[in-house]
């Protein structure tokens, strides 16, 4: 799981152009939206695309994102249980 969390942090940084940020800078338990990384609604859509592209996960209901994107740790857990690639 630690490896997945690290890879996921790298993919989030790349997908969302979080310049100047390293995987070590992201607390996997911190909230991604709002006060955490300060991501916005376009970032949420980009994360949905990233999950489909890298892990073959297609969210049937986009509102699921609210729960899944709570933190990197929650996201990694969801990916581990649902990935198809």
């Amino acid at each position, binding site marked *: 799981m630690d490896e997945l969390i690290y890879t996921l942090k790298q993919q989030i940084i790349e*997908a*969302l*152009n*979080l*310049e*100047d940020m390293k995987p070590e800078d992201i607390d996997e338990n911190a909230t991604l939206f709002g006060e955490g990384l300060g991501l916005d609604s*376009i*970032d949420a*859509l*980009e994360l949905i*695309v990233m999950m*489909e*592209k890298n892990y073959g996960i297609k969210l049937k209901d986009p509102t699921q994102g609210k729960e899944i994107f709570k933190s990197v740790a929650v996201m990694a857990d969801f990916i581990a249980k649902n990935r198809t690639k």
Partner: protein
Amino acid sequence: MIKHQVYISPSEVLVDGIPLNHNEKDSALLTELYRNHIGDYPKFFKMDTLSKLGFIASELLLNIEGNRDFEPREDRAVIFFNRNASLQADTHYQSTIQNPENFFPSPAAFVYTLPNIVTGEIAIRNKYFGETSFMVIDDYDEKIIMKNLENAFQDPITKSIIGGWVDCSDEEHFEARIYLMEND
């Protein structure tokens, strides 16, 4: 009347006609200018090159004016012109949907597929609630640009304008020639 002006090309930056020192060129130049003269707006890194160019040019312009209090105002318009519209962003977005086997439309790329996004970025940054517009014309034509900018002052609300030419076809070909104008 033009109060201040900024010129940016891939290899030259002039602020009120005075060259600004830099080491980088092309789109890396814009990042260098951001780091050296702005640095407090990470949304910059998410922008397409056209928006980065317009954003940096406007920041350099407003830094000369000083008094950056970011208080909401309606009396300043943002009016730009160019030739290539949002061509670079359009091409980038197209690349995310070109291959049916690798079809992943990027929302972050899509949001920049209109040239007037750059005027919105500047208005959001500075809390401007006045006119914003972006006109696509055949080529750089100072007469057309100045005529349109002067006409914008016919609106009784508009007292000043950030306006001019902001054009980008790719990361190595761009030009901003913008002015801070006041009605007097």
